[in-house]
């Protein structure tokens, strides 16, 4: 007992910080069940009216669909491009390899705002119409370096030996890639894909600047904010939170099962 009492201030402090961290999301979720039209105290729910409003909102549902589409397509492209690049750099003698690596990971050091502006100006100059495709292009720009870095770091000497063994046994290059390298790197491929999906799903500023009529969920939520505090925004936010947590739990379970 003496020991735990000594730790009391520490746990009190931790509790306070955790309270601070959880406060806004708790308020968000609680008032998504608000009965009246303003998400401030007193709480007069619980009511599912605002969730019903969200699912009846065509624009919101379209934005949700767009977000899923952009996230899946752009993440797939990021993983594929990143995988080929990592494999090329790790398994072949490349002149100035360090420079290539630096160039491919450079977008990680630049603010999304600046990447977004560059793309906006470029698309305007070249007369490329803004659409879901331009959003997807932007999301590959931010996720490709991430996928490349993760996959490159996982391509060790051990895998190279297994690949060589396969080649010695007569496997062709594509067979090595598909039947040896991909299965061995599966956890890293999976993790980078999920990370890319998360980043794309949550990304606002690029999607905001290079989109026009078809928008993603964060942009649609942004335009909702103009109406001020609104329980429907709480409901969308809580819904997004639920999806993200579910995705995370799935990722965690898959990676942990793999490790065993």
């Amino acid at each position: 007992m003496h020991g735990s009492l000594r730790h009391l201030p520490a746990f009190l402090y931790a509790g306070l910080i955790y309270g601070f961290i959880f406060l806004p999301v708790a308020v968000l979720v609680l008032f998504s069940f608000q009965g009246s039209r303003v998400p401030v105290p007193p709480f007069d729910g619980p009511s599912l009216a605002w969730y019903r409003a969200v699912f009846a909102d065509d624009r919101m549902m379209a934005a949700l669909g767009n977000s899923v589409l952009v996230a899946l397509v752009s993440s797939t492209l990021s993983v594929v491009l990143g995988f080929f690049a990592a494999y090329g750099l790790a398994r072949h003698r490349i002149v100035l390899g360090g420079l290539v690596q630096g160039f491919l990971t450079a977008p990680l050091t630049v603010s999304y705002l600046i990447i977004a502006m560059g793309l906006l100006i470029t698309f305007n100059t070249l007369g490329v119409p803004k659409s879901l495709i331009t959003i997807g292009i932007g999301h590959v720009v931010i996720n490709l370096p991430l996928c490349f870095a993760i996959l490159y770091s996982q391509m060790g000497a051990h895998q190279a030996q297994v690949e060589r063994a396969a080649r010695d046994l007569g496997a062709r290059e594509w067979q090595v890639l598909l039947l040896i390298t991909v299965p061995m790197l599966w956890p890293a491929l999976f993790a980078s894909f999920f990370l890319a999906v998360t980043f794309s799903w949550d990304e606002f500023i690029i999607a905001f600047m290079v989109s026009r009529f078809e928008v993603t969920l964060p942009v649609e939520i942004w335009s909702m904010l103009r109406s001020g505090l609104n329980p429907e925004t709480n409901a969308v936010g809580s819904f997004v939170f639920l999806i993200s947590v579910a995705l995370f739990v799935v990722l965690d379970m898959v990676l942990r099962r793999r490790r065993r």
Partner: protein
Amino acid sequence: MGGSARGWGLLLPALLWTCAFFAMPLVIMALYSLWQRAGVKLVTEISLGNYEKFFAKSYFFQSLINSLEVTAIVTVVSVLLAYPLAYILAEKVPARWQRLALLLAILPFWTSYVVRSYSWLLVLSEGGILSNFLLDLGVTAEPVSFANNRGATVVGFVHFFVMLLTLTVFANLVQLPKSYRKAAADLGAGPIRSFIYVILPLTLPGIMVGAFLTFVLCIGDYITPQILGGNRELLLPQTIMLQISRRADFPTASALAMILMVVVSLVYLACARWLKIERL
């Protein structure tokens, strides 16, 4: 090992993509920043006019100062709040609960980040949770708004970066061998001295990595100040967005973005050198 031609072939798609949609846009933006907008037309004559305007118009320059001030406050406050938490998690929490404790700390950030700033509005605005709480306590007689000012922006930022810094410092702390502290104790240092002279210097890399990330992400963010900070005091990203959305002035916006990029690069150079010295 195959030939290097095949290696380049594998690298080519990623390189082309990065050239076309990352490097080229930055070059075009740099070029735009040297052009001028006259009325609705674009004057493609090279000049430093936009940059001169930045230093001449106090409105632009002030937004950079505001950004630097807010970012500095956020970084310092976040480090001060996060370090004790990381320390408690690493030293006082049993190893088997650490994973759960960290996951819990990350959990609230799985909302969309637009929604995250909005959630703080629910807490801070007039009639919100905080205002209501103070009213119930009798501290204030009327509902008070804590939103639409610099403090609200700082709170919104600190919320996220406390979590981030806790992670980087924690990762650093758990790597330190327990024997260091024992050695310090054997040599006669009390717990406070061993913390100040042994543990703290050894966790500086974790602090610096976290602080640098905080700086970069904070100074380039548009959402948090726009939602929480209101319009009385603008940060640099807000000024940049105003040039685009209100005035369609891409040359000025480009120049401001270039300045933002230079500031981040300078801080990166300063940090990188500092970190290297630390490692020696």
